[in-house]
């Protein structure tokens, strides 16, 4: 038998071999001649711009969508994956870029769904979930309703789902976008452990430093095709970014301060009681934001930042305390009225609160601005103007799409995010409340969004910024407050603080910070 030259490291067939994968959508070539080998027992990263086709490729490998062309081999055997059920049988597990969770079911129900054979759906399954959660440090409580979880907790449930199934090939599509550095470190420790057990991990992220630290091999995808596969030891983040987009790595840095002494948002003793009767979710929070100022809130997800934001937006019942915008009391006003008063809002979960996935981009543009020009005039939707303004956002924010008529679902995750940012910056808001504003966008787009925020700030925009990305917080903020268990516990000057200091303040290091484990 003639010997065949293969690029793989050993004689064993690669865990996954993709050859010539192609996939088209109306007006878009998402994948075109993709070739990737993933060796067993390695972490293989895939990087590329927003809309480069990474998620599409992963969905093909997971059987969600059939490829138009190309072949998939798993452990050396060619497979046809007609549905996720086929992929699961072949040993593939996937964490999707957007959460795949049923809100009204408990964590346990979400985890065991589809894998009931393993431990049933009762006490044994809950015990196993608690065990996995404990040994991988996920802090997941099986009896909670998913609806009540924040984005970080949801992300950990997603990771637990894959671990529970015992997949041999694990796909992680941007699992770290909303995790704080400590959580990312925990996850990477777990991944290395999985790797040692002989599993293969395919990992997608826009945070290139992360990628370099954890990956054994990195494949760069550009405009739907594989450009090259590199060894992380031989490249820098800058070089990677250049391979992806040809642009430079941005560095968020605040230039001269634009903070004025005019208070724009004034929050006093804001408290949101826990409907279930526990400790308040938001606990006596007071702060001011001035015109032209960015206030960053640092905190591990689940410490009340989501509730704080939603209370300010008027989305939560039963809050006490006052919120004043430019001197006017907002209490008793609806979310819509608050938005009309000039608040822009980038929600933490774009699919839950940001978009109507099956509506067109221009209809999504009108959302939240349904009483204002240019989308609406004299109480009627002005389609032409809405389309034109959507086109403006598409160009200004570099949303990669065939046009304003496509449904939001057809955008890649990062492009959906850019659209939301563009929408919320429209209509000259006086206050922007931004939760993870650059979640899932590539390095180039991240820099562009930062520039937009900085420009608006120069013109007097006040920003309340929540982010799991500490570099973003430090780079953009004029002041950083740390939130822990619903209360503000520390204030930092971003020009002096290091990510490490911030990290330990966020976890309450030094104070009594009980780690919430799986079982109560």
């Amino acid at each position: 038998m003639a010997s065949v030259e293969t690029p793989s490291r050993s004689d064993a067939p690669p865990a996954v071999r993709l050859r010539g994968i192609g996939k088209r959508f109306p007006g878009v070539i998402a994948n075109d001649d993709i070739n990737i080998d993933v060796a067993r027992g390695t972490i293989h990263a895939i990087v590329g711009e927003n809309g480069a086709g990474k998620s599409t490729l992963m969905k093909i490998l997971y059987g969600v969508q059939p490829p138009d062309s190309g072949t998939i081999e798993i452990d050396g055997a060619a497979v046809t994956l007609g549905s996720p059920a086929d992929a699961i049988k072949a040993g593939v597990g996937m964490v999707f870029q957007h959460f795949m969770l049923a809100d009204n079911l408990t964590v346990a129900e979400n985890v065991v769904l589809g894998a009931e054979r393993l431990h049933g759906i009762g006490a044994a399954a809950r015990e196993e979930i608690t065990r996995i959660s404990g040994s991988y440090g996920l802090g997941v409580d099986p009896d909670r309703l998913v609806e009540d979880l924040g984005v970080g907790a949801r992300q950990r449930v997603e990771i637990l789902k894959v671990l529970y199934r015992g997949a041999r090939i694990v796909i992680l599509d941007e699992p770290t976008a909303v995790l704080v550095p400590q959580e990312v470190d925990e996850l990477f420790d777990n991944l290395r452990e999985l790797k040692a057990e002989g599993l293969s991990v395919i990992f997608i992220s826009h945070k290139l430093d992360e990628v370099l630290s954890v990956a054994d091999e990195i494949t760069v995808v550009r405009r739907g095709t594989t450009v090259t596969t590199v060894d992380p030891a031989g490249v820098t983040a800058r070089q990677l970014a250049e391979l992806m987009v040809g642009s430079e790595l941005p560095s968020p840095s605040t230039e001269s301060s634009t903070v004025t002494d005019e208070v724009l948002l004034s929050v006093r003793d804001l408290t949101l009681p826990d409907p279930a009767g526990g400790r308040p979710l938001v606990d006596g929070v007071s702060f001011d934001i001035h015109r032209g100022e960015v206030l960053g809130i640092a905190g591990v997800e689940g410490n009340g930042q989501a509730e704080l934001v939603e209370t300010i937006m008027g989305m939560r019942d039963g809050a006490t305390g006052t919120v004043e915008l430019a001197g006017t009391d907002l209490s008793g006003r609806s979310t819509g009225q608050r938005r009309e008063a000039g608040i822009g809002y980038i929600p933490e979960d774009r699919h839950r609160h940001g978009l109507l996935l099956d509506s067109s981009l221009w209809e999504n543009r009108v959302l939240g601005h349904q009483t204002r020009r240019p989308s609406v005039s004299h109480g009627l939707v002005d389609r032409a103007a809405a389309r034109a303004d959507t086109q403006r956002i598409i160009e200004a924010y570099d949303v990669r799409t065939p046009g304003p008529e496509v449904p939001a679902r057809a955008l890649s995750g990062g492009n959906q995010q850019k659209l939301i940012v563009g929408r919320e910056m429209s209509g000259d808001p006086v206050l922007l409340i931004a939760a993870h504003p650059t979640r899932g966008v590539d390095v180039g787009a991240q820099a562009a969004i930062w520039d937009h925020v900085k420009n608006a700030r120069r013109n007097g925009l006040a920003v309340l910024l929540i982010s799991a990305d500490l570099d973003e917080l430090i780079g953009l903020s004029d002041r950083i407050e740390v939130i822990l268990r619903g209360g503000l516990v520390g204030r930092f000057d971003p020009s002096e603080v290091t990510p490490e200091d911030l990290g330990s303040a966020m976890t309450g290091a030094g104070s009594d910070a009980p780690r919430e484990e799986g079982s109560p």
Partner: protein
Amino acid sequence: MSAPAVARTPAPRVRRRSPYTYLAVVVGLLVAVSLLEVVTGADDLTSSGTISATLVATVPIALAALGGLWSERAGIVNIGLEGMMILGTYGAGFFGYHYGAWAGVLGAILLGMVGGLIHAVATVIFDVDHIVSGVAINIIALGATQYLASRTFVGLPGGGSTQSPTIPSLPSLTIAPVSDGLQGLEQRNVFVISEVAAVVRALTTNLSALTVIGLLLVLVTYLVLWKTTFGLRLRSCGESPVTAESLGVAVLRYKFVAVLISGAMAGLAGGFLAMVASSNYRDGQTGGRGYIGLAAMIFGNWRPGGMLAGSGLFGYTQTLGLRSGRDSVHALLLAVAVLALAVAVLQLRRRHVRAAIGFAVAGVVVGAVYFAIDEVADDFTRMTPYVITLLVLGLFSQRLRMPAADGESYRKGSAG
């Protein structure tokens, strides 16, 4: 894994209700009704006759509601329940007359399933709007049964184009010693004790096998949907079909099966009307109970226990209206007034001032009506069940939570 400790806020956990809660609710209701009887002197409120009739009125509604529950838990809105019930009444009439009582039951189920099959093919396979398909089924079922009845029942003894011959009756249960023994106690009017005796008598006198089956199906539904893998998967299809799909669940298959079962339940509800609530198929027999069942299901927050309570409420008020309605319904006014005031207080404590004022005003108005009149006119007693259901739905509907993807169209391959 000795990573740095990360503090996280514990969120509320899912609260499980113990069976004792339900027991307490039942006992509480009994005490409340007894009190009402004492205060108002309307003594038919808890007679065993009333309770028996309530059971017969409740079960078909509950079965229809179960039908709705099965289908909506899988994400398919089934407004065609009424039509499937109509098919069931005909199935009971035709098969019951020709092949015996139990064949009638099977016939009702089978024809209901035919309705379910049409709905499933339309909504699950061809992605037709659920409401459109359901309404179409209601119209088609009505026409089809009228046509079939005129073809199959005319000329039979007692049959005609609008009714079937008498269907042989199903076995029913009477425990004479208990039933007769408690009669004295019931009539002695001892506070609460007599009411308990009346309930026991109702359950031991002429209790139809189909009533028992109907109530058991509520329990079975609960167990299947909440305690089995099949049920979890089915519910996941109603909550988030893309999630279910991404985990390897054959979503379309589960939806299809759920709608079939839904049809079977609705058909059985129709069979009950024909065979237990009366003794033959009659045109127009369902009288909108399919829609009432849907309302009861919503009232019950898409849960079997709640839906049974909703059906019971409707069955009870309907029974009261039909029996000595003038007095009993008059007494109910007082109950409604007190309930509204209680809710007002509750809302006030939750600081929902506007809602509290609304309920207080409603309570005072209804209370005033109670004291102003001595008995309720017949025209009004007939609408009582609807009014009360509406009111109670209004009181409790704030916290309803339907399956998240209920009524939405779903196509394979949309995960991600």
